[in-house]
C-alpha cells in the first residue's frame, strides 16, 4: 500500500489507518464528530497527498485543456483556478478536477486519487499537439487547512498566503521553505490547500499545527472529510459522479460553459438539455433513527427508484443524510422515500441541496 509523506505524523498523532484506493490514510485521530465540529467551528488539517497533481504546459496547453474540460479555461487567468469536469463523448463524467493557471502556458491540475491513471491515459490519447507536455508530479505531498479560523492560522505562518482570494493560487514562503497554496477546499468552509515536495510540506504542516492548536485546530481524517463534503453536497467521484451520469444529472450544470466552443461530450449534453433529463441527483434526510449508507435501495410507492450514492450521519444536523440519482418525479423537495439496507427499512424525505451552507457572516 502507498504511504504519504505524512505517515509518521499520522502514527504519532494516533491516527486510525485505513486503505483508501491503495493509500494508507487516517480515517480519524480522535472521533469523526470531534474533527467535523472542529472544522465547522474552528479549523482542521487534512492530509490530501493521495490526490493527483498533474502539470500541463506548452504553447498548446490552453487550447488542449479547452477541448478536454467543460469549463472555460480562459476564465482561469494567471494565479486563478476553476472547477471542471472531464467528460466522455456520451457526456458521462471521467473525473472532476480543479484547473489552476500558474503561468500563461502552464497549468496545474488536481484530480481524484482513484482517477489519476485513467485521466492521464485519456488526456494523452486525446491530445492532438506536440506542443504540450502532461506530467504527474511524482511523490508530491499536499494537505488542506480548513475552517473559519483557517485564515487567522495562515496569517501567523504566511501573511501573504492568508490574503489569497477565492480560488486563487500562488507560491508562498514559510520560513526557509515554499509551497503552492490555493484558496480552495472540500469541506464547505473557508480554507487553503497546499502542494509541494514532501520535505517542504512536512515543515509547513508542523508550523501550521503549532500555530493553530491554540485556536482549536485539529488534525482530521477521511471520516470527517466525508461527512463535511456530504453536508456541503460536494460530489465524490464514484458516488455522485460517474461515467454513466452527466453533470446535468448531477445538478452541476454550472460547470458547463456552453458558449466557449467545442469540448468533448458537448454534443451529448446539448442533446440531453433539449430532450430534458430523466434522473437528477437529489438530497434526502432520514426521519427518525438509522443511518443510510451507500448502496441502500430506495423505494417510492412500492417501486425501486434508485440506490443511495452517499449516505452518512450529519453531525451538524444531528440526522442521517444522503444523496441519490432519482427519477425526476421523485426528486422534488418533500417527496417520501423508503430506504432498505439489508433487513432494515428507514423513512426519508427529499430536501434541497446543499444540506449545509456557511453562515454569510463568516464570509471574508
Amino acid at each position, binding site marked *: 500500500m502507498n504511504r504519504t509523506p505524512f505517515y509518521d505524523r499520522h502514527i504519532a498523532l494516533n491516527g486510525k489507518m485505513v486503505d483508501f484506493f491503495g493509500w494508507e490514510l487516517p*480515517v*480519524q485521530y480522535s*472521533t*469523526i*464528530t470531534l474533527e*467535523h465540529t472542529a472544522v465547522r467551528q474552528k479549523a482542521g488539517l487534512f492530509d490530501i497527498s493521495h490526490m493527483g497533481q498533474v502539470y500541463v504546459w506548452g504553447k498548446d496547453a490552453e487550447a488542449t485543456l479547452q477541448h478536454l474540460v467543460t469549463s472555460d479555461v480562459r476564465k482561469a487567468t494567471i494565479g486563478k483556478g476553476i472547477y471542471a469536469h472531464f467528460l466522455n463523448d456520451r457526456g458521462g463524467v471521467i473525473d472532476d478536477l480543479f484547473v489552476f493557471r500558474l503561468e500563461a502556458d502552464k497549468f496545474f491540475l488536481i484530480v481524484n486519487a482513484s482517477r489519476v491513471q485513467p485521466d492521464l491515459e485519456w488526456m494523452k490519447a486525446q491530445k492532438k499537439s506536440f506542443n504540450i507536455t502532461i506530467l504527474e508530479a511524482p511523490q508530491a505531498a499536499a494537505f488542506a487547512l480548513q475552517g473559519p479560523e483557517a485564515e487567522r492560522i495562515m496569517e501567523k505562518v504566511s501573511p501573504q498566503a492568508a490574503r489569497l482570494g477565492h480560488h486563487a493560487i500562488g507560491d508562498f514562503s514559510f520560513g526557509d521553505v515554499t509551497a503552492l497554496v490555493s484558496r480552495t477546499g472540500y469541506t464547505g468552509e473557508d480554507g487553503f490547500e497546499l502542494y509541494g515536495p514532501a520535505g517542504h510540506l512536512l515543515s509547513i504542516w508542523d508550523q501550521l499545527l503549532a500555530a493553530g492548536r491554540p485556536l482549536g485546530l485539529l488534525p482530521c481524517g477521511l*471520516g470527517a472529510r466525508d*461527512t463535511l463534503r456530504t453536508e456541503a453536497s460536494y460530489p465524490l467521484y464514484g458516488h455522485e459522479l460517474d461515467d454513466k451520469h452527466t453533470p446535468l444529472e448531477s445538478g452541476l450544470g454550472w460547470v458547463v460553459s456552453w458558449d466557449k466552443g467545442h469540448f468533448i461530450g458537448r454534443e451529448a449534453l446539448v442533446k440531453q438539455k433539449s430532450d430534458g433529463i430523466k434522473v437528477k441527483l437529489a438530497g434526502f434526510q432520514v426521519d427518525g*433513527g*438509522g*443511518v443510510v*449508507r451507500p448502496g441502500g435501495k430506495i423505494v417510492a410507492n412500492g417501486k425501486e427508484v434508485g440506490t443511495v450514492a452517499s449516505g*452518512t*450521519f450529519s*453531525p451538524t444536523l444531528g440526522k*442521517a443524510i444522503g444523496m441519490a440519482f432519482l427519477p425526476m418525479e421523485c426528486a422534488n423537495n418533500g417527496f417520501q422515500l423508503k430506504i432498505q*439496507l439489508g433487513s*432494515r427499512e428507514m423513512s426519508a424525505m427529499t430536501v434541497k441541496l446543499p444540506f449545509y451552507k456557511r453562515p454569510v457572516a463568516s464570509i471574508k
Partner: protein
Amino acid sequence: MRSPNDCRFTKTHEWVAPDGAVGLSDHAQKEITDVVYVELPKVGRVVKAGEASAVVESVKAAFDIYSPVSGKITKVNTDLSKNPALVNQSPYDNGWLFVVEMSAPKERESLSTHDAYKKSLESNSH
C-alpha cells in the same frame, strides 16, 4: 453502579451482567466511537446466544450486536433513543442495551471474566 468485574464478556465484545443486562465493552465503544443511533430488539422477543439482536451505528458504520445469552428480552434502554452517546459515555452503566431473562444461565458462566477478556485484548494487540 454496575462493575465490569461482575460481567462476563463475549469474543464479540458484548458484556452480560448477573441480572441479564447486556451492553458493549469499553474497548468496543472506543473502537466504534461516536454512537449516533441504537436499534433495540422488541420487548418479548426470544433470542438465542450469538443471535444478532441490536444494531449500534456510528457516523462511519453499523455494527450488529449479538446477544451473549439465550432468553426473552424483558427490558430495553429507551434512554438511548434520545441519547445514543450513552453507549460511549457510560458503557457499563447508563449505556446498557437490553435485559435478557436467561433461559440457560450456564451460558453466562461459560463466557470470559473481565480479567480474561482484558488479557485476550492485550494478546490480540501484539
